[in-house]
């Protein structure tokens, strides 16, 4: 690397714009990046396009509208929606107390927020399944209330909410931190109630970040697999998520069907991803890169 790092020094000014390219390494770093992105990301994605385009429209449509698959879309969508809405409320609350208040153990709580990102999904899956099982720590109490979580769609919501809660907290937190106290203090000193100040002063600058966090949480939930399969029970037509349908088709060696269903999920996720990025670019410039 040491020898080739110098190769970018010199007249690399092909797209010379506002900033002059004085730093070395443009050719090398962009070269590595493009090579890697093409090989690791784009080439495999093109494989999916090739596989599905070889299917023929009728067969493709038949596969993705199979009644069991359609039920899995419905289950995935409503559970992901429920989980991300829950995370919207709870994530905002967590971000709020972490930014606004001091209390003992705050640093530990702050560190624990990232646990779902650090903990392998399979571990999360068996842990939640054990907690919510009929004789589990949570399950036995919930059973007395007549609530069943394990092996029901509710279990899917729990698993999705767990794995995606950090997205909301970590998106809202920096915006809350940067919120200027001046407007808020002015409104409070003029006698407005806290609820009113929150709605009229704080929420308007907060909601773009909240929407982004919830959308990220939703996108992650759509694709979640490891944490879900242990707790969902995976009953056809009831508690099967779409990524499990892809997995089942793969185990049947029906690669074409797996690809067709995967392409539906992938399209939805990529559209969401690009929409979120555009949204962030427009409303959350200060959040760029986070």
């Amino acid at each position, binding site marked *: 690397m040491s020898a080739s*790092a110098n190769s970018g020094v010199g007249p690399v000014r092909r797209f010379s714009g506002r900033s002059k390219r004085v730093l070395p390494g443009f050719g090398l770093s962009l070269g590595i990046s493009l090579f890697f992105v093409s090989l690791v990301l784009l080439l495999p994605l093109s*494989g999916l396009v090739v596989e599905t385009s070889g299917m023929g429209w009728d067969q493709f449509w038949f596969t993705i509208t199979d009644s069991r698959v359609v039920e899995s879309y419905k289950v995935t969508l409503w559970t992901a929606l429920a989980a991300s809405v829950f995370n919207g409320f709870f994530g905002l609350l967590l971000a709020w107390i972490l930014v606004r208040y001091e209390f003992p153990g705050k640093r530990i709580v702050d560190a624990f927020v990232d646990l779902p990102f650090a903990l392998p999904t399979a571990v999360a899956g068996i842990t939640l399944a054990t907690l919510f099982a009929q004789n589990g720590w949570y399950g036995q109490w919930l059973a007395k209330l007549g609530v069943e979580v394990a092996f029901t769609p509710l279990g899917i919501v729990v698993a999705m909410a767990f794995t995606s809660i950090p997205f909301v907290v970590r998106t809202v937190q920096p915006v809350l931190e940067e919120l200027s106290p001046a407007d808020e203090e002015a409104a409070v000193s003029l006698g407005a109630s806290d609820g009113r100040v929150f709605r009229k002063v704080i929420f308007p600058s907060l909601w773009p970040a909240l929407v982004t966090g919830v959308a990220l949480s939703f996108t992650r939930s759509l694709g979640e697999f490891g944490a879900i399969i242990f707790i969902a029970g995976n009953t056809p037509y009831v508690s099967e998520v779409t990524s499990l349908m892809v997995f089942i088709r793969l185990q049947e060696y029906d*690669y074409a069907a797996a690809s067709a269903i995967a392409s539906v999920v992938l399209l939805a996720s990529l559209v969401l991803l690009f929409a979120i990025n555009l949204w962030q670019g427009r409303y959350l410039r200060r959040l760029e890169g986070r």
Partner: protein
Amino acid sequence: MDTGHRRVGDQPWVRRTLIGIALLVAMFMLVIPVVVIFAEAFSAGWSTFAGNVTDEYTVHAIGLTLFVAALTVPLNLVFGTALAWSVTRFRFPGRKLLITLIDIPFAVSPVIAGLLYLLLYGRNGWLGGWLASHDVQLMFSWPGIVMVTVFVTCPFVARELIPLMQQQGSEEEEAGVVLGASGWRIFRKITLPNIKWALIYGVVLTNARAVGEFGAVSVVSGNVRGETNTLPLHVELLYQDYNVVGAFASASLLAAIAMLTLVVKAFVEWRQSRPIVSTPEKEVS
């Protein structure tokens, strides 16, 4: 918090209620699950735990998992650093697109990630067929596991570096160029010390995810016990065999890595927050 500068939610009862609710939910959602992992792992005593983690297949799974991480992390370290350097130090057409593209693994379901590689490099895939005719098998063996793990973890280092390097700006490096330093020297002496902690956290995060990836690896591994079984897959296998204590023993190893990741993160944030306070000459770009 005197009355002259009161902000929303400063009243003691509001503060206590909000903190109370949040801590209660956080406890049930985040803390107790970790407790339960270790409680289950040790529920049959220390010797059973020791027996479980020194079991022949568990040891093999640990070895394979570490091997995969050892290959994945350096690859993504080089890629992430190169990508962050190119998108934060230069302007070029397609720069924004490149930043969005590296987020793809975050949006793609792990199962689909595995499927993508299976389609391309599997026996019937268009590259896999050619490779098979040369006696190279990538899927259902360790190279396939490494490949999907690289895919799944490739955004982490870049994602940690990009915001930091953007915020730091390139004045210091430009000064290095003016003073005649070579590119490698500028990177080593100026850039690296500035991004050191973010880089470490990126590596730790990449490692945590590489060690713990389940969905994508499960698709391409073939799950052969003692051969292509990684630790998360081993956890699943034991759990499906109703060996819950054994499953949690292996899971506790993964949970320990996760806890370590959180500790490193807290430490890195503490280190990063210090120089901003202590060096007033720090320029804002």
